[in-house]
């Protein structure tokens, strides 16, 4: 049954590209097929189990130098798909690139994370794991209630174009998140941990140990703080800051000229850190053999010891900028490709979380924030409400911060990192150490 369906889709793709060629255009079909499962517990109770299947086909055509796009989940509308793509190409942007042809697979090529154990992990196993976590947390943190979800997915992607490129890969994905909710009077405390991997990396015990430790620390409230203080961002929260650079290095921003990094290649922009876009990272969610336009994956150093090295480009932005693609095309199920990162990897330091805490006379450690992505992050500005954070004095956590914000500018903050941990931790497709910033603005209400 499944095999016959695959065949049937393959036939549809051929058919679509034939129609495109007959109308005098060049074309590219991007097909995604995804099966996912998820189980969820709410307030300690198993509530929902799901299985989803998604098929989607996106078609780009280049006709008379202009590009058009259409996509569908409905295989019965292959003809509309081609028509709509051509109609939109009449008005579409003039482009100066061609769909890439067959490329020999280079030695040591990147591969997508694929773990057969994710494919066979059953909802029953997930429920068992969930119940175990909920039971332990109920005993250790009787004041709280646990929300939990475990999801797996298997995604196969295929790109075929009229220049002769035809390749596909399959990737697996596991997400496990646990949140303890503690309501007392008018106070609501969320303590969460979890992660997102390409492999069956179930870390229930690590998550519940961390949650129960943090819950114990959160019992005591810290006094109000205000002023410039040293602040540790734990690796899990670092993506809130790193996002500023993700926006800044985007080739679309280069073309539009609104990134603060325009004209600064070769300049020392940050402190002694190196940040790399790395689709080769083994087992990571963003790893892949080629990008969403079929360009073989490559590592791109974005910042090397603080010196800004490169923007990220897809075919279109590269052509506009007079550069080459960095294999950074990325698209959603139903959307045309834009520019995105694969995995972002930051260099580590020499310290440990404990040592960094000890080095602070008085400082803040952040485990959870609210309000990411609302400030003018393209300019590097951030202002984050600390959902879960503590006041640290001489290495000891003295209490939980209430109604406190931390703010600053990512470009300035990364200009003077005092220390970071020697271990790199995963936060989805971002791999970062815990980082100590010597001075950020902190204010309690």
């Amino acid at each position, binding site marked *: 049954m499944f095999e016959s369906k695959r065949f049937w889709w393959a036939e549809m793709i051929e058919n679509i590209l034939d129609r495109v060629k007959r109308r005098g255009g060049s074309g590219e079909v991007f097909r995604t097929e995804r099966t996912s499962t998820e189980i969820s517990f709410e307030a300690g*109770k*198993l509530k929902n189990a799901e299985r989803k299947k998604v098929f989607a086909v996106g078609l780009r055509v280049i006709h008379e130098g202009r590009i058009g796009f259409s996509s569908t989940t409905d295989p019965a509308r292959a003809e*509309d798909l081609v028509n709509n793509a051509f109609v939109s190409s009449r008005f579409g942007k003039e482009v100066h690139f061609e769909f890439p042809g067959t490329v020999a697979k280079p030695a040591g090529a990147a591969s997508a994370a694929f773990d057969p154990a994710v494919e066979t992990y059953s909802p029953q196993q997930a429920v068992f794991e969930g119940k175990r976590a909920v039971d332990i947390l109920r005993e250790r943190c009787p004041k709280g209630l646990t929300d939990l979800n475990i999801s797996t997915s298997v995604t196969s992607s295929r790109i075929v174009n009229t220049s002769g490129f035809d390749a596909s890969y399959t990737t697996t994905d596991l997400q496990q998140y646990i949140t303890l909710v503690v309501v007392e009077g008018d106070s*609501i405390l969320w303590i969460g941990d979890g992660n997102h991997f390409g492999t069956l990396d179930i870390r229930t015990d690590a998550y519940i140990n961390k949650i129960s430790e943090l819950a114990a620390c959160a019992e005591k409230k810290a006094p109000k703080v205000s002023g410039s203080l040293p602040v540790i961002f734990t690796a899990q929260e670092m993506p809130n800051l790193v996002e500023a650079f993700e926006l800044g290095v985007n080739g679309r921003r280069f073309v*539009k000229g609104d990134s603060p990094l325009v004209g600064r290649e070769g300049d020392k922009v940050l402190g002694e850190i190196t940040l790399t876009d790395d689709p080769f990272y083994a087992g990571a969610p963003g790893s892949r053999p080629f990008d969403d336009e079929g360009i073989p994956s490559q590592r791109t150093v974005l910042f090397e010891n603080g010196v800004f090295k490169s923007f990220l480009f897809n075919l279109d932005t590269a052509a506009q900028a007079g550069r080459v693609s960095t294999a950074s095309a990325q698209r959603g199920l139903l959307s045309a490709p834009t520019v995105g990162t694969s995995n972002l990897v930051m260099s580590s330091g020499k310290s440990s979380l404990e040592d960094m805490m000890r080095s602070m006379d008085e400082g803040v450690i952040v485990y959870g924030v609210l309000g990411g992505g609302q400030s003018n992050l393209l300019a590097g500005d951030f202002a984050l409400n600390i959902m879960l954070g503590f006041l640290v004095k001489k290495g000891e956590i003295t209490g939980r911060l209430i109604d406190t914000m931390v703010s600053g500018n990512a470009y300035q903050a990364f200009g003077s990192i005092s220390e970071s941990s020697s271990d790199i931790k995963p936060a989805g497709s971002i791999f970062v150490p815990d980082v100590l910033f010597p001075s950020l603005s902190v204010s309690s209400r």
Partner: protein
Amino acid sequence: MEQVMKSALRGIDADYADIRVERSDTTSLAYMGPVLEDIGTFMTLGGCIRVCIKGGWGFASFSRIEDAEKSVHEAFVLAKLAGESKTVLAPVEPLTVRVKNSAGKDPADVPLDEKLLLLKKYNDMMVGTNGIVTTNSVYRDIKKTVWLHTSEGSMIEQDKIYAGVSLMAVARDGSNVQRGMKSFGDQRGYETVENREDEVEKILKITRDLIHAPKVSGGVYPVILDPQLSGVFVHEALGHLSEADFVYENPQALEMMKLGRRFGPDMLNIIDDGSIDGENGRTPFDDEGVKGKKTYLVKDGILKGRLHSRETAGIMGESPTGNARAISASFRPLVRMTTTFIDRGESSFEEMLEGISDGIYACGFLGGNTDLERFTFSSAYAYRIENGCITTPLRDVILSGNVFDTLNHIVNIGNDLTLFGGLGGCGKGGQSPLPVTDGSPHVRIEKVLVG
């Protein structure tokens, strides 16, 4: 379609089951600067089955209608796995009904080049302005039909048409990058996006003001929120707290949200109403087939009601409100808002300004977030209030605070209720964006932390 759906559920041995199928056509256009960056159409067809057994839900989605029967079996097996207590769903009357869209001019009848010319006109007004380095102008229309069939016998077909634009101008002065933006979108039809030149002029004025505006100096201020920002505030601050899935299994949370509790001054009335025609949040029937209605969340300052799915209403012994919504047929319905607003008050804007010696007039909306106790949201632009007068522009005005304190610090509610839809929407449980409308009159709050 009806026949396929009926036969899929026939004979299922479950406490409850439903099948939902959605077909949609989307047209999307986007300019970045002078360049038409995206032009495309998306056509989707998909469906899902929900099965409830002993209080546990099994959910299976599919993209080929032929797979519906197989998905019923998958959902059934998953529901058996999840079910370990008792199914309690608030009763609703089974219905057979067909609801037409509420749009005037159907965007599907407007040729693509006409849509493009309209967007280009707005975009050109911004691109051609001195000091504007780039723009982001988006047009989108969606035409969808959703069919729902329940094991209790309901068969509901609903047509919806959304049309909207989102317009943004970006100015840059060295590393200072500022944006002015507005977004319009609802279910009224193509008319919603026409004749918006005045709004483009406003965007340009806002952007020009912001690029020269000083950063606000942080502190606690009396703040007047414009209707759009105040609408976001009520959505974030009280709306999410009123979603019953937060309280129905959590006795401490329920104690906090006990009906009858005071939540603000007597003049404060907060309403969610899925039955308002034409609004972005319009929900004649929710994704469980419950009719949308007007629900007072707060009446005369007192907590009066909350938003329900059939399950949360059933377990809490309250009436369903028609708030179980999903972003598409690939997702299960969650308790969500529809059109949520602070009701009209009595103050004029001039009365509100009186007596503010050093305050902030915060307008528009960049983003918002809440952990239910605290909220943070960014105004798109703002002005200083000095001695009762609006004076200089300010940038980077981010408001944050405690939900409960802040509602109690409301001192004036204006007489100028305005509702806002837009191209964005609300996110929850991995489902975003769900079309909602927020609204309010101008509101003055005595003490707000501004960062």
